């Protein structure tokens, strides 16, 4: 392994990677018809204005559900996906501005371990060939003997010993954990300083996960590595990470030292994620007080705070909009039974008007029904569950001559707020919002 010069001692270690205002947007092509009529293509803001520093020598956990943008953020950071805006500065270079040639050079210093060890290794190459491949690609050495000795050294280091034996094997001969060790060896052979580990243990058996995590921690210590650990699993992250960043629909909603995140979670989403983790304790039963629904479609994110439709503590300014009423009615109708559903549905002339993020909407009354009946129905929905956060967002609800008009409070986008050691993006902690 190569040795690196020691960083000069400083009070606060300089960031190894500095991400500022990073945006990674994907355009999605609409249907054939959409393109014919020139309707605009969809835009997915996979990473939406993220700023954070990765400090030298730390393990930063990037935690979120699928669709949160965590994997895209990891890939943008490595230059595997091009950024739409913002910067990622690594060792003085802005990754987002580099050409492929320059990036390839830098990749010696930054490597990635993927989730699926079975898919990460070429089944037609021996372990020795796979692990030594980066040396060839990077043009570091062409000497077979040199490659072989470097491969042997790194295989032994990740626990695949005796190395001679494993070098000749094919991925198919190895267990999942052994394959993941080989993938880690391949990442390490170039002596990187940064390792992005994207769900490195989630496809492995529980009995093996601890071993791989321990190996990663040993390697970090021995080679002075910095990790970005991408996961959906707050339980392994707790053990593994110095700091945690919680991502939701492209944004970091909370970031701080691990102990703070676990002992004193601030964002309602972080709190929900922690509650949902199944504990091997039979005195606990399945948690019931969980956010409803799922992560929304990133191509049509909710107004205001993206989490507001699922948030138990959302209030007036969190971003209430027409779509939320539709969700509310549908959740009600799912439980109501067919008769009541038919009766209530008939009062709503057009449900599609609620398919927008409008904050002022006119719902036509149903055919043959008075708009007053619709208003009465909505008022009774409110009376049945006045604590439902949705109603906190309703400023005005009144019947016109053939429609019901509903106006929501003006929404505000939450901003990152420093709160002691953590930073949280939630109106609950914003003194300016609370005052309004």
């Amino acid at each position: 392994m190569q040795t690196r010069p020691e960083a000069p001692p400083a009070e606060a270690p300089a960031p190894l990677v500095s991400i500022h205002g990073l945006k990674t947007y994907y355009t999605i092509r609409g249907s054939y018809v959409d393109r014919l009529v020139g309707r605009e293509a969809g835009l997915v803001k996979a990473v939406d204005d993220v700023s954070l520093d990765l400090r030298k020598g730390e393990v930063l956990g990037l935690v979120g559900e699928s669709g949160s943008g965590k994997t895209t953020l990891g890939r943008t950071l490595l230059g595997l996906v091009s950024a739409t805006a913002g910067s990622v500065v690594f060792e003085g270079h802005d990754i987002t501005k580099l050409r492929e040639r320059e990036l390839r050079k830098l990749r010696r210093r930054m490597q990635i371990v993927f989730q699926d060890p079975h898919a990460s290794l070429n089944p037609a190459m021996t372990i020795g060939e796979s692990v030594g491949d980066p040396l060839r690609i990077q043009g570091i050495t062409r000497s077979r003997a040199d490659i072989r000795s470097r491969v042997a050294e790194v295989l032994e280091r990740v626990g695949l010993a005796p190395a001679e034996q494993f070098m000749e094997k094919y991925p198919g001969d190895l267990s999942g954990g052994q394959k993941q060790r080989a993938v880690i060896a391949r990442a390490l052979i170039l002596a990187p300083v940064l390792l992005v580990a994207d769900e490195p243990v989630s496809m492995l058996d529980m009995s093996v996960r601890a071993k791989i995590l321990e190996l990663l921690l040993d390697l970090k210590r021995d080679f002075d590595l910095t990790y970005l650990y991408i996961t959906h699993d707050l339980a392994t992250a707790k053990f593994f990470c110095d700091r945690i960043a919680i991502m939701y629909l492209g944004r970091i909603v909370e970031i701080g030292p691990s102990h703070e995140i676990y002992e004193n979670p601030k964002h309602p989403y972080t709190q929900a994620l922690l509650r949902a983790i199944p504990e091997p304790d039979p005195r606990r039963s399945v948690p019931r007080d969980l956010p409803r629904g799922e992560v929304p479609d990133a191509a049509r994110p909710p107004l205001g705070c993206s989490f507001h439709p699922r948030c138990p503590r959302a209030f007036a300014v969190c971003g209430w909009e027409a779509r939320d009423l539709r969700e509310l009615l549908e959740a009600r109708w799912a439980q109501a039974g067919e008769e009541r559903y038919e009766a209530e549905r008939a009062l709503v002339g057009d449900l599609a008007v609620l398919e927008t993020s409008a904050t002022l909407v006119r719902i036509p009354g149903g055919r043959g029904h008075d708009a007053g009946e619709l208003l009465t129905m909505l008022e009774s929905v409110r009376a049945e569950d006045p604590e439902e956060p949705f109603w906190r967002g309703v400023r005005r609800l009144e019947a016109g001559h053939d429609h019901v008009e509903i106006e929501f409070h003006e929404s505000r986008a939450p901003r990152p707020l420093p709160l002691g050691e953590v930073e949280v993006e939630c109106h609950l902690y914003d003194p300016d919002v609370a005052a309004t």
Partner: protein
Amino acid sequence: MSVVSVRDLRVYYGTPHGPVRAVDGVSLEIQEGETLGLVGESGCGKSTLGRGILGLLPEGAAADGEVVYGGRNLVTLAPRELRELRGPDLGLIFQEPMTRLNPLLRIDDHFAETLKRHEPGIGDAEARRRSLDVLGKMGIPPTRFRQYPHEFSGGMRQRIMIALALVLRPKLLIADEPTTALDVIVEAQILGILADLKAGFGTALLLITHNLGIIAESCDRVAVMYAGKLVEEGPARDVFAEPAHPYTRELLESTISLATTALHSIPGAPPNLLEPPSGCRFHPRCPDAMRVCVEREPVELRLDGDRRVECWLHGPEDQVSDEGRRELVREEIAIADEA
């Protein structure tokens, strides 16, 4: 009353190197309205056991033993008779919901087809009423009844699959890793729904998972499987509080949860089922192994509190000699063999 009673079930897969004993002499009972969790590492035979109970085995597999349901042995039943039982009596939920729904069929058509195949006399209105009722319980609103599978999220598709299994009101539902592909919050939502089955439908549930946390939170009883055998079974609360088998204990300790304070792992890896280890199959990895464990297969022992275990540590006393009780001396397991 037990809904299904499995006695000495064996399922072997034929390979060019000989039979793989994926399920090797398993007996268990599932009671009406109860949730039984089946847990073990990958490759221990838990999915094969689940499918074996339903008679859903791939080509090249052979089953022997008894699966008694409604007085009949499903193992010897003709395929046609078995097919009739699947659905209205015995339901199955898989891990990947997307691959099980027909992308060209609307949700209502899925339900109509299922209901009409198994209950030919059912009218359209009744089929619709029952479908909406069970979908509603799963949180799928009637407004989406006419949509196609691709219009739903992964979690919703899994709810639809569960509803599709439940609409026939099966006595027994086998769920094979039903939440593994889902996010934690959605996973907890689905587990909540499955827990409500007992109250709402009286359905017995066999929940197959590798996650002990899920078992703890949603199962009445737990069966622990290792290398084709059930090594321990009992009420979940008691088994978790005081595991009788060293494998159960090691599995619990290696589960990483928020309460984890130290990383723990089980040495070695599950054995190849072509040639499983002699005696107790866990002995090469067992921290408590004795000499007898190498030589003889452990016998099933009944413990207090409706529990059973297959482990020489618990006796029977009269079958183990003093020599047999001595600690097993063996070579270190190389790190490379572990993961």
